[in-house]
């Protein structure tokens, strides 16, 4: 069996990801807003004894990169030593923007790469009255042209057959302009190659990272001697190519579509309206948060009761001893603490992927650009900021589509302030404990408070963005040029797969950490050294001779916890957190949260169940009944609850986010500044709130 490496290349919004899903069956995201395929996706399939290794490259408008995403495309295609460098390229074209796609195709061909051309969304084009003369197009492109409709699967088999077709000879269209002839010749000599266009590309790029220093310095030298402005080279090439394509396209396409107010136009009249557009967007946001809160209720109750039952039955079935404790108090309680939040996370992702799939997300970018610009952000920052409401990790990665370096860095630095789904568990539990169940302006008061927490996260993000904008200098011009695709009915399969992927990714990713931390916590909480831990029963009997039965057992348990390794850790940070209104048990939760904030609830569940002999209580009722020994009041009272909410709203408590920020900014300095700023700010906000409210 032979193997073949193939890259999928095309403009954004041409259905490239959907086609990739069709070919490989590998599940991944396909959306409508710029930069859905920010990650490099790979997959494979076998057809007629050949194994095809596919790489789905990010969407790009041409070979000349203007964002990090597009730089990745250029790097894979130009660098023959790149592990994903393809043996053949499949260029996916948009029938409504055929010239643009052909331009990109010709650039790839002239780099010396074999390629075939696919016209996707052919059904939509035919409905609109567009007819493409495939024979003429094949002659023009000197390759096989395949018509597909990735949504319905039409043309996929033909595409697979075409992959094995013999490559046709290709004659370059683009002629190096005379005034650059010498420079190109020198570059060819330097790099020891005979491809004019590759030499031209090297001269027209900002940098050629994959070349060795000798070559890239040589290229810089040639640029300097000939006073080459790479920007003019790119523009010259694009204009020349378009001129040639315009001539060649004569009679190639028949367009009988009438200029009539389409469905998209009618919708946009409302959805991008200077007043109603914003009203719709903010109403939609409020609706999403209400939905997260109310729809998830019954599911959460069910899961909560299910896990309480599971812990009780497991406790009865297993023989008494440390293993029993580890399984019931450690593992089951810990896992229950994460599974319970699946409903909310799934609901949030349903809305986000519907917005991406339908094309509405790019309208959000359009509407928000004006209002994000004063904060040093771009309209495209709206996408990371909104995705940040799900999880900061993919959100930080989606900032790659922002062309301007400064806007991109600011977006990455402030996105973790957005209320991610990991904060949701803490918010929901705390709000449930301290905010009364009542109605306000026709909605649940608790829902309003939750909405307020989201607003607070947004304000923190915008405020710090504004600060950063004042502090940072930039030489790059900022711009926004973005395509707004037609509205499409979301593909239900794509939405469901996306929700499934994201939810499972969150649960498994977070679940691993939570499981590990749960076991460590249980061990630290169940063992200890010193008189008061090992002889807890005798000491309690001596100090409180009046205690009997259950009360006695509870007292012993809580003393054991207090003097276990875990208790010692919690009590050692107590002086630091007492001014915020927390006791040492909550301190344990805070310590654990620095790995990932979502472990707070499961940690508290373990801490409280270790200090208690009753296994049947739910997490919520345990927390409600907990008394802060320092103040003699419920641990989760109004003041400490607000203080906790603020701490979790602002603090950087996620190892994975820290790691991804380091990777995406390529700077320890900014990663550290972000960590210190967020956590310091969280501490002072919580301190202020508790001291004012107590």
């Amino acid at each position: 069996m032979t193997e073949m490496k193939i890259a999928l290349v095309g403009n954004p919004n041409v259905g490239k990801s959907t086609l990739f899903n069709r070919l490989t069956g590998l599940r991944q995201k396909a959306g409508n807003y710029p930069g859905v395929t920010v990650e490099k996706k790979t997959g494979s399939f076998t057809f007629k004894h050949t194994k095809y290794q596919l790489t789905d490259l990010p969407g790009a408008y041409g070979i000349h990169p203007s964002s990090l995403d597009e730089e990745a495309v250029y790097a894979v295609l130009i660098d023959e030593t790149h592990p994903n460098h393809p043996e053949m390229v499949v260029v996916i074209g948009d029938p409504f923007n055929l010239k643009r796609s052909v331009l990109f195709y010709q650039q790839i061909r002239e780099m010396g790469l074999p390629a075939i051309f696919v016209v996707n969304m052919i059904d939509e084009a035919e409905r609109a009255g567009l007819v493409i003369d495939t024979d003429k197009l094949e002659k023009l492109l000197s390759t096989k042209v395949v018509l597909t409709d990735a949504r319905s699967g039409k043309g996929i088999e033909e595409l697979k057959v075409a992959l094995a077709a013999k490559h046709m000879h290709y004659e370059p269209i683009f002629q190096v302009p005379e005034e650059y002839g010498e420079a190109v010749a020198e570059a060819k000599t330097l790099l020891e190659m005979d491809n004019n266009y590759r030499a031209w590309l090297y001269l027209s790029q900002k940098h050629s990272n994959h070349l060795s220093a000798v070559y890239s310095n040589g290229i810089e030298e040639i640029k300097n001697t000939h006073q080459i402005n790479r920007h003019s080279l790119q523009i010259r090439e694009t204009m020349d190519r378009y001129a040639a394509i315009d001539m060649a396209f004569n009679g190639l396409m028949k367009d009988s579509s009438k200029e009539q107010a389409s469905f998209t136009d009618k919708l946009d009249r409302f959805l991008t309206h200077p007043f109603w557009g914003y009203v719709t967007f903010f109403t939609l946001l409020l609706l999403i948060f209400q939905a997260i809160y109310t729809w998830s209720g019954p599911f959460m109750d069910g899961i909560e009761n299910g896990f309480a039952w599971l812990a009780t039955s497991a406790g009865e079935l297993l023989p008494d001893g440390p293993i029993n404790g580890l399984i019931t108090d450690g593992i089951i309680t810990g896992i229950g603490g994460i599974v319970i939040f699946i409903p909310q996370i799934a609901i949030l992702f349903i809305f986000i992927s519907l917005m991406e799939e339908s094309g509405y997300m790019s309208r959000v970018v359009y509407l928000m650009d004006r209002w994000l610009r004063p904060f040093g952000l771009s309209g495209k920052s709206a996408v990371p900021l909104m995705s940040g409401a799900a999880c900061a990790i993919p959100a930080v990665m989606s900032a790659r589509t922002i062309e301007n370096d400064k806007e991109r860095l600011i977006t990455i630095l402030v996105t973790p302030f957005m209320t991610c789904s990991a904060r949701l568990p803490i918010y929901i539990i705390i709000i449930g404990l301290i905010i009364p169940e009542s109605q306000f302006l026709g909605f649940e008061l608790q829902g309003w408070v939750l909405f307020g927490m989201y607003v607070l996260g947004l304000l923190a993000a915008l405020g710090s963005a504004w600060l950063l904008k004042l502090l940072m200098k930039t030489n790059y011009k900022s711009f926004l040029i973005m395509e707004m695709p037609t509205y499409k009915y979301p593909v239900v399969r794509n939405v469901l797969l996306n929700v499934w992927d994201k939810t499972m990714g969150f649960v498994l990713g977070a679940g691993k950490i939570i499981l590990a931390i749960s076991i460590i916590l249980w061990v630290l909480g169940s063992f200890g050294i010193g008189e008061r831990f090992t002889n807890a029963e005798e000491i309690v009997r001596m100090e409180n001779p009046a205690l009997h039965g259950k009360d006695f057992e509870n007292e012993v348990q809580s003393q054991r916890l207090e003097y276990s390794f875990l208790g010692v850790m919690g009590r050692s940070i107590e002086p630091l957190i007492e001014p915020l209104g927390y006791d040492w048990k909550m301190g344990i939760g805070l310590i654990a949260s620095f790995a990932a904030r979502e472990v707070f609830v499961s940690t508290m569940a373990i801490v409280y169940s270790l200090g208690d002999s009753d296994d049947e209580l739910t997490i919520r009722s345990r927390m409600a009944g907990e008394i802060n020994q320092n103040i003699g009041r419920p641990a989760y009272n109004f003041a400490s609850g607000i203080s906790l909410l603020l701490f979790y709203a602002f603090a950087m408590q996620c190892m994975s986010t820290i790691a991804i920020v380091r990777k995406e900014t390529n700077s320890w300095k900014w990663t550290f500044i972000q960590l210190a700023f967020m956590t310091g700010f969280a501490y002072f906000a919580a301190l202020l709130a508790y001291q004012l409210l107590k």
Partner: protein
Amino acid sequence: MVQHKSITSLKQGETGTIIGYGSDSIPIKVYEMGLLPGVVLTMKRLLPFNGPVCVRIKDNPNAIALRRSEADLILIESLSI
């Protein structure tokens, strides 16, 4: 008479033909998106408070959003006067 106006002088619903650019330092993306001399486009939306504009190239169902600062550099000849 050829008037050197920019895209932003178009009112909502008006149509014009691109004739050139007001500066050499326009992002390559403008060219790649197909906003080239000779192209006919219609103004779909101008957001107030100097917000971005949204134009549509003739026969292309997808629209293109641009900030005013870029749109101001694309010169047109108005058709609807």
